[in-house]
């Protein structure tokens, strides 16, 4: 039996509709077996294989930080067959969880640095894990700037944290933008990459982390370059189709690197050495 | 669970067109005509909707026989769907036999909405014929 591919049975504890439109839901999940739950220790930025028995598996980033209890959270966009069926699930449903997989963010190397997080849409999910981790260990890190954009005010994920929790933390600023406003929206309107340049974050002593749709990442990376960030100061994540999560099925490689094991977190310096097959 | 030889009854999957054959089956029911209860009816818009893949899928999932039932030629609700179906199942019937499925596992019949009696008769005849053939094991999915 291929033990690494056998998931832990877990129970959905809570489901939260993030956008009101039902396209992104955050699932709070507990692994049933107490020993397995205690043994599941992830680093921020790592992923897990979430499965519905009978439908299949998909790799989802763990959006809860390791600093907050044994329950795991996954913010999942309804994008395909398995995620579509997950969206139909209700609390109490049994699912499969295996992992954690991947390298996660190199948070230990960030001590004393200023942090700039730039996210778009569902791309905030992996960032949320590392943001909350850093806030839970606030004294280890410098100033934190969180830049986030979504298509509309309604599409902003994790609204409570964005609007209330994070802005009230020490030395922490949240900058929000939307592609299109609505009647109530008072904040900036525009795309994330241009918005980052308007904010003009200082490059010196700063780690810039970005995650979002591929086109946004591409433009944000260009913006970082114009702002004077060096390649090794810039961190992003890759998303490829994955099946095993353990570096064996031969699928998610970008050049010699397997995203499930060597990624999903890469510095821009590392990415530049890889073929652009992602 | 064990099923004795005596009590075995063939499972029939019947693809019935919405406009004629399904109405025929309905009429058989409302007329309280007796026919074997082992038939599983799947309503389709037209016999022309029945993809030959449906037949093999039914055998894979446990059917002992498959019935495709549609409107009589000339009576199709969509004018010609059953004519195309007729060609398709002329070919598919022979092809299934070529693959080694016994003749008599796939039946095609025209049953109109007023032919409740015919529906019941076809199911009775088919059931009896399948009982003589015995359970189908060919193409059957096994345990994993």
């Amino acid at each position, binding site marked *: 039996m291929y033990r690494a591919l056998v998931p832990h049975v877990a129970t959905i504890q809570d489901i939260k509709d993030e956008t009101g439109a039902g396209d992104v839901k955050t699932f709070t999940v507990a692994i049933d077996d107490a020993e397995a739950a205690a043994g599941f220790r992830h680093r921020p930025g790592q992923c897990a294989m979430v499965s519905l028995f009978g439908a299949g598996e998909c790799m989802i980033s763990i959006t809860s930080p390791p600093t907050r209890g044994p329950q795991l959270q996954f913010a999942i966009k309804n994008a395909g*067959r398995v995620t579509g069926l997950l969206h139909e699930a209700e609390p109490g449903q049994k699912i499969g969880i295996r992992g954690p997989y991947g390298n996660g963010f190199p948070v230990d190397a960030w001590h004393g640095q200023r942090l700039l997080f730039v996210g778009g849409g569902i791309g905030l999910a992996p960032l949320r894990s590392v943001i909350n981790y850093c806030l839970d260990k606030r004294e280890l890190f410098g100033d934190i700037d969180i830049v986030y954009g979504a298509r509309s005010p309604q599409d902003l994920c994790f609204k409570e944290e964005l609007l209330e929790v994070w802005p009230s933390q020490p030395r922490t600023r949240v900058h929000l933008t939307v592609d299109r406003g609505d009647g109530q929206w008072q904040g900036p309107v525009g795309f994330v990459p241009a918005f980052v340049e308007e904010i003009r974050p200082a490059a010196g002593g700063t780690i810039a982390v970005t995650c979002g749709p591929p086109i946004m990442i591409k433009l944000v990376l260009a913006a970082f370059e114009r702002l004077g960030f060096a390649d090794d100061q810039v961190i992003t994540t890759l998303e490829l189709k994955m099946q095993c999560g353990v570096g064996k099925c031969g699928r998610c490689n970008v050049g010699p690197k397997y995203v499930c094991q060597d990624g999903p977190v890469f510095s821009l310096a590392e990415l530049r050495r890889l073929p652009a097959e992602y | 669970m064990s099923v004795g030889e005596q009590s075995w009854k063939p499972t029939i999957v019947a693809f019935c067109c919405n406009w004629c054959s399904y109405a025929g089956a309905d009429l058989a029911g409302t007329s309280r005509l007796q026919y074997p209860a082992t038939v599983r009816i799947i309503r389709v818009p037209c016999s022309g909707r029945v993809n*030959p*893949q449906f037949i*093999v*899928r039914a*055998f*894979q999932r446990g059917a002992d026989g498959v019935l495709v039932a549609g409107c009589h*030629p*000339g009576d199709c609700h969509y004018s*010609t769907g059953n*004519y*195309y179906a*007729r*060609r*398709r*199942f*002329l*070919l*598919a*019937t*022979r*092809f299934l*036999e*070529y*693959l*080694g*499925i*016994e*003749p008599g596992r*796939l*039946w*095609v*019949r025209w049953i109109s909405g007023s032919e409740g009696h015919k529906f019941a008769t076809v199911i009775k005849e088919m059931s009896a014929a399948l009982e003589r053939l015995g359970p189908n094991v*060919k*193409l*059957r*999915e*096994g345990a994993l």
Partner: protein
Amino acid sequence: MTAWLDALRDHVREFLSEPGVDVFIGYRAGRRGREVPAFLTRPEQASGLVLGPAASGALAKYVLEEAAGTTGRLGVLARGCEALSLQRLVRDLRVERERLHVVGVPCAGVADLAKLEASLGALEKVESCGERWLVTAGGNRHDVDPSQFMEERCRDCASPWPQQCNISFGQAVMSPASPDYSTVAALEALPADERYAFWIRQFERCLRCFACRQVCPACSCVECSLDLVDPPWLGREITVPAQAMFHYTRALHVAGRCVDCGQCQKVCPVGIPVALLNRKLARDIQELFDVQNPFVPGEIEPLGKFRAEDREEFM
């Protein structure tokens, strides 16, 4: 050396000099005695064109990829089966006939290279010479009888001479034969259980590599039902019922459109007699629907039309 080859090269050279021409698909010499598909884009490449018994005969399907996203004209070298394959793609609206420049050439059968290698050793060259083949293998030259080493599918070829070409070269070498349905008939004569055992034994070897589909000129769907995950008609499972579903579906989907090029069976890496499925359907189509030649693409294919008086033998 074939007499018309120079004339063919000259013609292709001219064709490639014309404006609006994208590519000419033919064969060039490969290694180990092979002749492999070649995609010529410049006139000077025409001198590298070859066509011998080692050319495998599956050029038509390349038209799909070559025509995608471009608008220019495409030249294709075509023997009988390749010409039929091109007609198939045109009838199925996969490429406009006007974009194709079909260059017909005669065929005297394709060599079964594995068989040649098994008896003569590593191949260096296979040439046509009159009615014989000259084979250089294992350092020696052999004069061989084509009928001994011809691909099985070529033995009863009904269309060795290409039809509906823009131009053709050479003269017919083989006369058309009638498809030999004796293997189909022999299988039909078996009891159902033996027939089932025969096919299951074949299907069990299937790797699901999809080579039979990929090479088939009648399999040109943009999205293949066999790839669908939802609903999983085939899915990924590899069990006998799934293998049977695969072959049953593939054969029925090309029924009435198969041109009997035999490539599906030729490319199968595990020797499944795929064409035997196609031929059964073709023979029944001929018999049931009064189709004269079931392998020649017609205006509307036999399963796309009907007659009110069609038989009802299943009643």
